């Protein structure tokens, strides 16, 4: 099915030319895995990284006789998502069976909502880089179950040429919500940026709603991007392609941009676009054709007879609405004001994924400025050089607050604080514990410092002479000697004070 890339053909258009000549239309389908304790239709636990086929029951294995039961928590999560996206919540809706044979679908049908989604007709206002707000209309958000995971062994690791394939059903039955936009029109040359900002905004919403960890790299959030071009904003929609499983924000932007250029090239050459699914290649930054998607594909949908219709009461929906947390865009504006940040500073914070971390650090007692300095400075550098997400660093916001308070109390200077942080990151404990274990604390014991100063004075009579002669700056040499002797743990100001009192006294 995967064919050689056709994208090196010279027909790919320059992007700027492409958007000058054509009006892009997008449609985005985002799947989010819900972080419920158990699966969509059975009691099997949700786990990530468990031994294959251990998080399963007769239901998620599709054994003969097994029956589904709807997970009420998943329904609540879906309603939360629907409400956050300004959707209507259905008074009654049903699940359907989507019938197709594939080894990762244990029953050979997927239980999914079809023509009766739980949420529909909503919108999301997304903020672009420059602060412009773009409204994305939401067609629907519906519930479904995930499939298992195939691993092809031997050959290239793809299905063709593999010696055999293995299926892990741990993922089978994990609850998903699929959010489908209406055609996104009017974004013009900013279409790639809108796509990225939309998915990013959704990710933030999922997290703030507490419905998913929403980790892109784990596939908790997956996006399929439909792109078509038309001659002008009042022309009929062109034929679309669907690029599947684009799983990072940057890739979404790149994939849309590439697909616009590619389609423009085909159209310019007098060709026509094939309605098909396409694969995104992260390494080369291009898409390649997958299977041709004809409208004749027949899933033989029919209402799932093993489940009764779902009828969330209006009281329950209102209760959920009342319990919704502050949404990310609102919260962002509030925090920006509270922390007195410029638009650019706030955007940097958001783009670095540091907002929650800074907020938690402030909550633990640090000033916003100090919290931001740590997370955007030393910690951002460490994360980058370790190649991990900021939030995955082995340090908690409380640690950073504690570290800062050690500095504020004069017990650590900047250099010592960085060493203490290194200890925390190395798993040596809290900053206080690291300071104790490594003996990092500033030496402020006057007796110890006076002894060190006396030693330095005795060893450097010429310097003492210079100071006494009025060359005050010569004291630097003595300070340096004391700092060296105390391995940097002395408070330099204090040392200077003692030197002058001794020399002049």
């Amino acid at each position, binding site marked *: 099915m995967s064919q050689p890339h056709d994208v090196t053909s010279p027909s790919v258009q320059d992007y700027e030319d492409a958007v000058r000549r054509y009006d892009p239309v997008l449609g985005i389908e985002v799947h989010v895995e819900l972080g419920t304790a158990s699966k969509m239709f059975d009691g099997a636990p949700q786990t990530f990284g468990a031994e294959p086929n251990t998080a399963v029951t007769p239901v998620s294995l599709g*054994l*003969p*006789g*097994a029956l589904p039961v709807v997970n009420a928590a998943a329904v609540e999560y879906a309603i939360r998502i629907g409400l956050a996206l300004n959707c209507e919540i259905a008074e009654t809706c049903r699940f359907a069976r989507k*019938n197709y044979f594939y*080894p990762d679908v*244990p029953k050979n049908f997927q239980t999914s909502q079809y023509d009766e989604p739980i949420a529909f007709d909503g919108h999301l206002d997304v903020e672009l880089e420059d602060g412009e707000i773009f409204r994305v209309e939401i067609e629907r958000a519906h519930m479904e179950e995930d499939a298992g995971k195939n691993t092809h062994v031997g050959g290239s690791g793809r299905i063709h040429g593999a010696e055999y394939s293995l299926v892990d059903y741990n993922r089978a039955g994990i609850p998903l919500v699929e959010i489908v936009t209406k055609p996104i029109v009017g974004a013009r040359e900013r279409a790639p940026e809108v796509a990225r900002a939309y998915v990013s905004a959704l990710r933030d919403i999922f997290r703030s709603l507490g419905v998913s960890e929403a980790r892109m790299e784990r596939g908790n959030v997956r996006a399929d991007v439909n792109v078509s071009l038309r001659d002008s904003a009042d022309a009929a929609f062109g034929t679309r392609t669907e690029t599947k499983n684009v799983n990072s924000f940057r890739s979404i932007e790149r994939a849309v941009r590439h697909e616009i250029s590619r389609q423009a090239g085909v159209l310019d050459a007098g060709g026509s676009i094939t309605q098909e699914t396409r694969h995104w290649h992260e390494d080369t930054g291009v898409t390649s054709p997958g299977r041709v998607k004809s409208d004749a594909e027949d899933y033989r949908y*029919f209402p799932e007879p093993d489940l009764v219709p779902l009828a969330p009461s209006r009281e329950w929906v209102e209760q959920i609405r009342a319990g919704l947390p502050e949404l990310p865009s609102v919260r962002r504006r509030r925090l920006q004001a509270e922390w007195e940040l410029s638009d650019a500073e706030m955007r940097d914070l958001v783009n670095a994924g540091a907002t929650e971390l800074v907020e938690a650090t402030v909550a633990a007692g640090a000033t916003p400025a100090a919290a931001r300095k740590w997370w955007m400075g030393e910690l951002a550098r460490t994360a980058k050089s370790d190649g991990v997400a900021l939030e995955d660093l082995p340090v908690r916001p409380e640690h950073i607050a504690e570290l800062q308070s050690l500095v504020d109390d004069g017990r650590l200077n900047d250099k010592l604080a960085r060493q203490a942080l290194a200890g925390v990151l190395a798993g040596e404990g809290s900053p206080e514990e690291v300071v104790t274990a490594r003996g990092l604390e500033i030496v402020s014991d006057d007796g110890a410092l006076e002894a060190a100063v006396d030693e330095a004075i005795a060893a450097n009579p010429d310097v003492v002479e210079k100071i006494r002669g009025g060359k005050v700056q010569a004291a630097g040499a003595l300070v340096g000697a004391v700092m060296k002797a105390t391995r940097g743990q002395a408070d330099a100001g204090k040392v200077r004070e003692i030197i002058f009192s001794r020399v002049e006294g």
Partner: protein
Amino acid sequence: MAETSLTHRSAADLADLLRRGETSSVEVTQAHLDRTAEVDPAVHAYLHVNAEEALATAADVDARRAAGEDLHELAGVPIAVKDVVVTKGQVTTAGSKILEGWIPPYDATLVRHLRASGMPILGKTNLDEFAMGSSTEHSAYGPTRNPWDLERIPGGSGGGSAAAVAAHLAPLAIGTDTGGSIRQPAAVTGTVGVKPTYGGVSRYGLIALASSLDQAGPVSRTVLDSALLHEVIGVHDPLDSTSLTDPAGGLVDAARAGDLAGMRIGVVRELGGEGYQPGVRASFDHAVDLLRGAGADVVEVSCPSFDYALAAYYLILPAEASSNLAKFDGMRFGLRVEPEEGPVTAETVMAATRGAGFGDEVKRRIILGTHALSAGYYDAYYGSAQKVRTLIQRDFAAAFELADVLVSPTAPTTAFRFGEKVDDPLAMYLNDVATIPANLAGVPGLSLPSGLSDDGLPVGFQVLAPAREDARLYRVGGVLERLLTDERGGPILDRAPDLEVKA
């Protein structure tokens, strides 16, 4: 106590004997196993006999009884289970080659209730493959024979459960009824069978045929025995979304009530005329007369949409079955067949497995159902059938305004001979014409023997009640059974020929 007297007792009698210490569960269980060893080679009611586990359960119950433990009323009374119900550690095949040798890792909910009640499970009974048929001729493991005449069908799909009970190989059995698979076999074997209200018995662990129609229920030789078993299995189950939260109760009391004063009984005009064997009609009419004599108010009711029930049923059932049976693909359990030529891929293995593992009737219905659900045909077929279903539900609602229960012959004919209809699916399907409406509407139905037809074979009498009013079935059935037994001077199965005991 002699073995035959134990096998010819009702479950209620056995329960009494056990309670009084006059026999033990091991004795009762062994008596049924012995008779099965002797008789079943001729009948073939069982696909698997489970002597070891049944005797272990029996011994355990006996020990608990000896220790003075408080036991369930039916504790120690053995039972047979239709092989479409999954039993942990016991082979479950649904009568299909595609599940040959499959040992489920879990119990159906109703099986858990049987075990919790201390009922030894004698074995798994034969059926038409995946419960598709009315004769057990579609079992991949050979047909079951009717104890009344070994050249005739025992009904289907639950012919094995009905024959096991009729041949005294088990006092009780579990059946499943999608369009009559409990009631029609009961009718043609002279036994009692009940399809509870849809949702009354958990479907968790029933290998699904048509999810919106399937319902498990009791098979027995007396109305009271069915009521006793129905109360064991009729429990709400959180693992089945369609399970009723307040299943019908008072069934045993109703079976013992013995009073029909003031009850309105509706004879359904559309279930009885043309196509019904004269001997069947005569037996039915006589039973209605007896009920009238017992104080019931007999009225005629009309359910005009019933004429379309069979057609609607044969769209809904195959549609749901085509999807339910998709999981049998050789990937995770059961038979796995590799293609004889060409590449071995998931797709070709699935095709080869299904080609080799399913019988013709199953394939026929999968093809029908796949077509009925196809884009462009859905509205005309599946959609229309669902509308007919609604009309049938309205007919029932209207009829139950006029009558407390409805009655009809259970099946249009007595047991037919093997091979008579096996190549004529439409003739076979017509056998279920009187039982199907209850499944389409989800209402409960009971069949009990009303007597013998002029061919000397048993005739079934069907009672239907509104949803959740299962108790009415037992009340009417209990009274009619007593009247008929008194008139006859004994149970109808006493009229059945002695089965040749294998030397």
